[in-house]
């Protein structure tokens, strides 16, 4: 026992347990939902059972008794399913999901070094009630005894927690509190847990598995890097000693540098690849979200997931979770209609929401499609006029696309009734802001009565982006290359004035024209022959005149410092070879600035 205690207080052991348990829990919901579809899938059942069993075992060893109580009860239920004593109905699934949620919360508590004492009676009783009669009675007796034990052990755990927090280096007391599970569940009627709460706990991934192949590649490249360093040192020595000079030295140095930059590029790529994880890490929570939400909305929804194996940067995966949840919830709430309505419209009663990820060049595209209501541009337009976002005159000259874009403005919501799922007017703008902060974009396309498609575009990684360096009125700016559609020459006389906003005609196309120098308060450029960069933000295009192209570069994005988080039109900064700071233009922000100005709302933010 004493040895056990010693081991149980070993923080690395606890950390390992938390990692292992969290990894296991990620798949539990998914597996459980597949089980609901196919109640006799023994393989699935075995896997769930094993995960719960492992958690129970290790938790018991480490002395997390509450965790043992819940996982033990869940294990019993799973075991009876395995033995075929009962069949996994939706009540089983609901209750087990609730139990897994509780386990997840407890594991999180452990990870944060906080021991919270929960009232688990109701949950355990609910689980026990699922057991068939005979074992149920037995279980009841057992549970009474166990409850008593658990109470004693909980008190011990509390004492241990206090001891632990006193010891903990930070000196901050770990919160020890009593939370009542009963209270929580009574606040939320019906079985399914509120979908938002499950998902809101976006756990930051602090540990990740990296494919050994990727690591080997890294180590190889580092070896190569060391070789190249030696080569340069050798060249330097020869040069200093006078053995190598003139064009021989120049050639050798040129070779060595070329080789070095090749290795550096490869190394950059390889190290970024270690950070890539499959988007499945986010996608796999959606079957649960959709199930619970469809349940509470009284709708029938089938979720189709494609391209879950698409890889992108770990931070991206973490940060697109919230916007995605929002869009999926919107699709269910506003998109998919009630079964009766669908049938009346000649659609199958069950709606389909598709979540798809794919790589397109150096971009990841995530598409959320529903086959529901669709969005009515007329209603959006009317609302926009009502809210004073646009004049009725101006609205008439706007494309459907531009009108749809209003839904991404802050405070814009067309939902007539407010519920706890969506329609509070916070949301779409937050989605766009989140995406912008990731250098991505979100666009919408919709056909009334047929459904809507939201397309998210994301760069593969946040850390390094290629930029096009341009000079505008003596200042150098960097344009993210992924937004640069093309560069052309144009004449100043091709500029036209339409409804007070400038447009540029290039061949058959007419593009909104942005005078960056005006937006940025620089002297006007008057060259007759203009160099024009066409930037694409989703489907939208914007033309930008620059004085000079300076070339392309790979840059590391830095923030402008925490004080200057939001500068309109600026995405961040980068440091150039000569040590100067260069500003990176934010194409989406630019578009916003131009549109606002067209709407007569442009003000310099002070």
């Amino acid at each position, binding site marked *: 026992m004493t040895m056990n205690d010693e081991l149980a207080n070993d923080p690395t052991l606890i950390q390992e347990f938390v990692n292992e348990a969290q990894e296991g829990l990620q798949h539990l919901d998914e597996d459980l939902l597949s089980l609901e579809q196919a109640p006799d899938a023994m393989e699935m059942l075995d896997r769930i059972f094993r995960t719960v069993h492992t958690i129970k075992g290790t938790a018991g060893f480490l002395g997390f008794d509450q965790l043992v109580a819940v996982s033990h009860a869940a294990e019993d239920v799973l075991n009876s399913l395995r033995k075929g004593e009962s069949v996994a109905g939706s009540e089983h699934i609901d209750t087990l999901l609730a139990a897994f949620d509780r386990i997840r919360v407890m594991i999180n508590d452990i990870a944060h070094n906080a021991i919270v004492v929960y009232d688990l009676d109701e949950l355990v009783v609910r689980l026990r009630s699922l057991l068939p009669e005979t074992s149920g009675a037995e279980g009841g007796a057992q549970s009474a005894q166990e409850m008593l034990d658990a109470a004693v052990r909980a008190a011990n755990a509390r004492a241990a927690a206090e001891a632990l927090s006193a010891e903990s280096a930070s000196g901050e007391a770990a919160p020890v509190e009593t939370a009542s599970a009963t209270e929580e569940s009574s606040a939320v009627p019906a079985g399914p847990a509120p979908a938002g709460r499950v998902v809101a706990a976006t756990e930051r991934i602090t540990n990740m598995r990296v494919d050994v192949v990727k690591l080997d590649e890294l180590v190889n490249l580092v070896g190569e890097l060391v070789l190249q360093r030696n080569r340069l040192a050798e060249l330097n020595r020869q040069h200093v000693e006078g053995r190598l000079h003139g064009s021989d030295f120049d050639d050798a140095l040129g070779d060595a540098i070329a080789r070095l930059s090749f290795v550096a590029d490869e190394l950059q790529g390889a190290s970024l690849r270690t950070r890539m994880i499959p988007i499945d890490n986010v996608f796999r929570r959606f079957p649960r979200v959709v199930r619970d939400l469809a349940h509470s909305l009284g709708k029938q929804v089938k979720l189709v997931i494609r391209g879950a194996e698409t890889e992108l940067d770990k931070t991206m995966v973490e940060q697109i979770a919230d916007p995605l949840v929002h869009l999926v919830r919107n699709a269910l709430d506003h998109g998919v209609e009630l079964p009766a309505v669908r049938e009346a419209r000649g659609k199958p009663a069950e709606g389909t929401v598709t979540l798809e990820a794919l790589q397109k060049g150096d971009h990841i595209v995530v598409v959320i499609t529903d086959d529901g209501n669709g969005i009515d541009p007329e209603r959006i337009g009317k609302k926009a006029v009502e809210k004073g976002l646009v004049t009725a005159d101006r609205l008439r000259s706007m494309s459907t696309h531009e009108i749809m874009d209003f839904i991404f403005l802050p405070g814009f919501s067309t939902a007539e009734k407010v519920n706890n799922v969506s329609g509070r007017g916070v949301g779409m703008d937050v989605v766009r802001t989140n995406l912008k902060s990731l250098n991505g974009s979100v666009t919408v396309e919709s056909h009334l009565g047929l459904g809507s498609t939201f397309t998210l575009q994301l760069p593969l990684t946040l850390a390094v982006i290629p930029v096009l360096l341009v000079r505008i009125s003596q200042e150098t700016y960097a344009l993210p290359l992924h937004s640069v559609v093309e560069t052309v020459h144009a004449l100043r006389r091709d500029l036209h004035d339409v409804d007070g906003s400038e447009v540029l005609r290039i061949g058959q196309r007419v593009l909104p024209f942005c005078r960056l120098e005006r937006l940025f308060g*620089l002297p006007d450029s008057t060259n007759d022959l203009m160099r024009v960069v066409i930037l694409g933000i989703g489907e939208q295009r914007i033309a930008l005149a620059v004085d000079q192209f300076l070339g392309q570069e790979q840059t590391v994005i830095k923030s402008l410092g925490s004080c200057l988080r939001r500068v309109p039109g600026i995405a961040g900064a980068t440091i150039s070879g000569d040590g100067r*700071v260069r500003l990176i233009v934010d194409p989406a922000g630019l578009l916003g600035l131009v549109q606002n100005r067209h709407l007569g709302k442009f003000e310099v933010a002070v």
Partner: protein
Amino acid sequence: MNTAANTPQSMQRVVLEASAQTGLLQIVSFRIGAEEFGLEILKVQEIIRVQDLTRVPNLPDFVEGVINLRGKVIPVIGLRRWFGLDQQSYDKNTRIIVVEVSGSVLGFIVDSVSEVLRIPADTVEPPPRIGKVERDYIAGVGRLDDRLLLLLNLDRLMTSSEVLQCEPAEA
């Protein structure tokens, strides 16, 4: 970032205790125009010469730009502009005082930095109304022989601006 932030903090504790015992404040003194100002030394991270500034558009003019501080981009504020004084071109005495205020690192451009002073804490008087410099930003007036030192209240300075909403840096 973390280690850098931790050390000054633990230092701060040590020095504050020391100053509590001795009753002395350590102040970095600098000049803007004819006036002499002071900043508590613990707020000051370093003092550097003026380097190439990159102007950032659409910000109030007292934000003179951003600089590269060893690979980190920090905003630089012209105290002259902030105080509404005439702009003056930089010369060999112009310095940037790099400070950390509520987790954010930023620089202040001053005409010149004079010295580090120790002044008895009990000689600091509450701020009177002085010229154009807003009283809000002055924590107190230190007296040293016949010199008057306006002690800046940086936290006030920062929170009063809507543009510089300093939130704790995200590691």
